[in-house]
């Protein structure tokens, strides 16, 4: 059995070594993220069957927890690791041809560090270690948003940096308050000592954590950075930010709320916040002309839907939320990758400049359409079982509040359908105004391969959702059974 | 002992407020450097020499140097 520490350490070591390969030849630098993420994918898939029976616990440095750091590779950790490795691997193939100018070595180092940070957040069992890897993720993404160097990119990156740094300060204050009270930093040990959320000294760290992680997860009042950052970044980075970074922020928030605090009284508040985020995301996306801003607002909406599903706190609800998370990761990355190539060909980001692209770039436009239908939730694709599970989970609880919120969710889905169909209509049913470049251009291979593989996953899992629902059900039970988690780490 | 600590803390607060009020940005940067230095001395009084050394080297020397380079690239006086 491979030690799960290697999932974090090998990409980190390869990120340190990239300049060495740069001394040998500048052309082989772009293959290093490819190799590292392929390794991660293989190792995490091999760990999968073993983790589903029993979570793997690894301690570091030879010291037992709580005196040392430990890693907990449970079903939800390995699920996230597989997703991160898969999407990262495909986007690194996309970046072979997409990133051509400027200083490529720094792009590849920062990209690999972003994915290492994300893998570290989902695998760790110690709250300060989670903060450190969360910082690696955030700082790499600040620099990657500003990668192109023009004025709008730098302004978006500075906005993201200031809000993200404030969020990190709040998380650190929360960790400090918890450590001062209980004298330990291990998540299982803290969870064993926290009895109820109602005293002030436990409530304040909970609020600080939700606000701090909420900045990265883009929950309603804290998401002002997201439209600018995701639309000014290079398209491969937008795919990774929308597909991985905000989901990892949501994971950290959910892990703290469910496992660390066991707070069931704040879940109603989180549910309302999720629905407000969903409505705001979808309504703002409806008015956008710039395609990347539209996709960014759609990400905000989907995160709101996921937060709603995850706060229903029944096994069915969390399974639905995690299914929606998988479908959003695959679908939104596909949309950003396809849109990125279409923007590169047409030269502008407006939706009106995509008219007629269905004939010029058939494969890319088809992939964009499939991704759009999947996010809206149409039947043969992966978005449909996810949304169905969420609606059924909420109606199963049979409370009046949930039914009202389901009405708002369906309204938001209708709005979402409207703006995605507008883009599909422009792609296929409008004629191109500029009749100079009428020839059919097929995209280069390194851009088509990731698009095809992601489309394949969306179609296959959409037709047989049973392929992944077992994994999701065990992940849901890991999140809900706080006592089992505590007992397995600290006997 | 307590008197020295009180004087140092008051000096830190005065200097932090001065960093906000000064219009000449170089003077504001120097006031921020004084806050870091006094923090380093207070860390030493609280019996944490490692943290005091790190705060003095990074907060007082390197961060001030970076701020001065930044002010040199933009404008010196704030209206």
């Amino acid at each position: 059995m491979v030690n799960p520490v290697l999932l974090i350490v090998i990409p980190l070591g390869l990120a340190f070594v990239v300049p060495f390969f740069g001394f040998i030849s500048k052309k082989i630098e772009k293959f290093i993220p490819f190799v590292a993420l392929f390794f991660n994918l293989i190792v995490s898939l091999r760990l999968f069957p073993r983790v589903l029976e029993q979570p793997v616990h690894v301690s570091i440095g030879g010291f037992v927890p709580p005196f040392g750091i430990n890693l907990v590779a449970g079903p939800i950790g390995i699920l996230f690791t597989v997703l991160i490795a898969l999407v990262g691997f495909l986007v690194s193939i996309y970046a072979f041809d997409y990133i051509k100018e400027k200083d490529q070595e720094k792009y590849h180092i920062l990209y690999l560090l972003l994915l290492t940070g994300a893998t570290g957040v989902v695998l760790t069992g110690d709250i300060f270690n989670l903060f450190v890897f969360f910082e690696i993720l955030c700082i790499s993404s600040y620099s990657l948003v500003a990668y192109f160097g023009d004025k709008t990119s730098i302004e978006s990156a500075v906005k993201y940096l200031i809000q993200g740094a404030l969020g990190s300060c709040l998380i650190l204050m929360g960790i400090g308050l918890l450590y001062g009270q209980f004298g330990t930093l291990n998540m299982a040990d803290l969870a064993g000592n926290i009895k109820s959320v109602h005293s002030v000294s436990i409530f304040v760290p909970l609020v600080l954590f939700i606000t701090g992680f909420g900045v990265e997860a883009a929950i309603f009042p804290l998401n002002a950075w997201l439209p600018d950052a995701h639309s000014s970044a290079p398209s491969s980075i937008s795919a990774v930010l929308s597909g991985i970074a905000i989901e990892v922020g949501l994971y950290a928030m959910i892990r703290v709320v469910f496992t660390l605090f066991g707070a069931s009284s704040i879940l109603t508040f989180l549910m309302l916040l999720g629905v407000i985020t969903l409505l705001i995301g979808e309504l703002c996306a409806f008015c956008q002309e710039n395609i990347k801003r539209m996709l960014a607002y759609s990400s905000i909406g989907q995160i709101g839907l996921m937060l709603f599903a995850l706060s229903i706190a029944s096994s069915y609800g969390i399974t639905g939320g995690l299914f929606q998370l998988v479908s959003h990761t695959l679908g939104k990355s596909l949309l950003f990758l396809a849109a990125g190539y279409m923007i590169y060909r047409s030269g502008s980001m407006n939706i009106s400049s995509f008219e007629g692209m269905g004939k010029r770039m058939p494969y890319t436009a088809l992939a964009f359409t499939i991704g759009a239908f999947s996010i809206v939730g149409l039947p043969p694709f992966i978005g449909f079982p996810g949304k169905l599970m969420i609606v059924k989970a909420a109606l199963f609880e049979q409370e009046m509040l949930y039914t009202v919120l389901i009405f708002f969710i369906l309204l938001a889905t209708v709005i979402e359908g409207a703006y995605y169909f507008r883009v599909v209509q422009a792609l296929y049913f409008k004629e191109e105004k500029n009749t100079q470049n009428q020839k059919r251009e097929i995209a280069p291979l390194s851009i088509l391969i990731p698009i095809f593989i992601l489309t394949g996953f969306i179609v296959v899992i959409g037709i047989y959702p049973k392929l992944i629902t077992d994994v999701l059900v065990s992940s849901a039970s890991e999140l809900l059974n706080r006592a089992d988690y505590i007992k397995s780490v600290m006997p | 002992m307590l008197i020295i600590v009180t004087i140092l803390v008051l000096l830190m607060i005065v200097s932090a407020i001065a960093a906000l009020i000064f219009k000449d940005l170089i003077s504001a940067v120097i006031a921020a450097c004084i806050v870091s230095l006094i923090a380093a001395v207070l860390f030493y009084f609280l019996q944490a020499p490692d943290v005091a050394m790190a705060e003095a080297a990074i907060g007082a020397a390197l961060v001030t140097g970076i701020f001065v380079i930044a002010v040199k690239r933009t404008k010196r006086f704030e209206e």
Partner: protein
Amino acid sequence: MRKLFVILLLLIIAGGITLSLKEIPFGIPKTKIGDHFINKGVEETGSVNIVTSVVVGYRGFDTLGEITVLFAATIGLGAVIGTFRKNSVNREVEAASLIVYTGCRFLFPVILLVGTYIFIHGHLTPGGGFQGGAIIASAFLLMYLGCSNKRIKENLSKTVEMIGGLTFIAVGIIGLAIGQDFLFNFLPKGEPAELLSAGIIPIVYIAIGLKVGSELAGIIDNLIQKS
């Protein structure tokens, strides 16, 4: 109006943190892990400086994460600054006088020596990799300010950074390869308070000192080159 709202929000946050801090008494005997570190730190890790035994021994993985954060910040700064055009207005930089120039050239190796001493003796005296690295970087800052025509070779600083980072990870992986955990202390612990004691801790601290020093010097170099 907006300022009033911001002040109100800050007062609420400050009030919440104060109410929560009232439950935590200051200076009581340490609970749980603090107690264990103070009592058993020397015999379990071998270093006399307890802060070092916590930073590199018990929580070495966090230290690896922290130097990665610094690495990401340095590379990010280099990536963003690399896109600026160099200022085309050639400002006349007045060369420093002979006393300043000679003084800087004289002080530079002395400050490097102090920094190196601090990180080599990290397990014996207060200090360690981060502090030593920051002092080395401030020596480079002094050289840039005093003698304005000397520069660091970029390839040299990249190589030093790479060696530092790889040494840390290699030491950890050797611990994994001999059958124990990552970052296991596999060298003999020796006598406490000797220079060659505490297993892998001096090696790790030398790697951290070199890496942090070259990273911070790289930040200063990037900023001064482009302004």
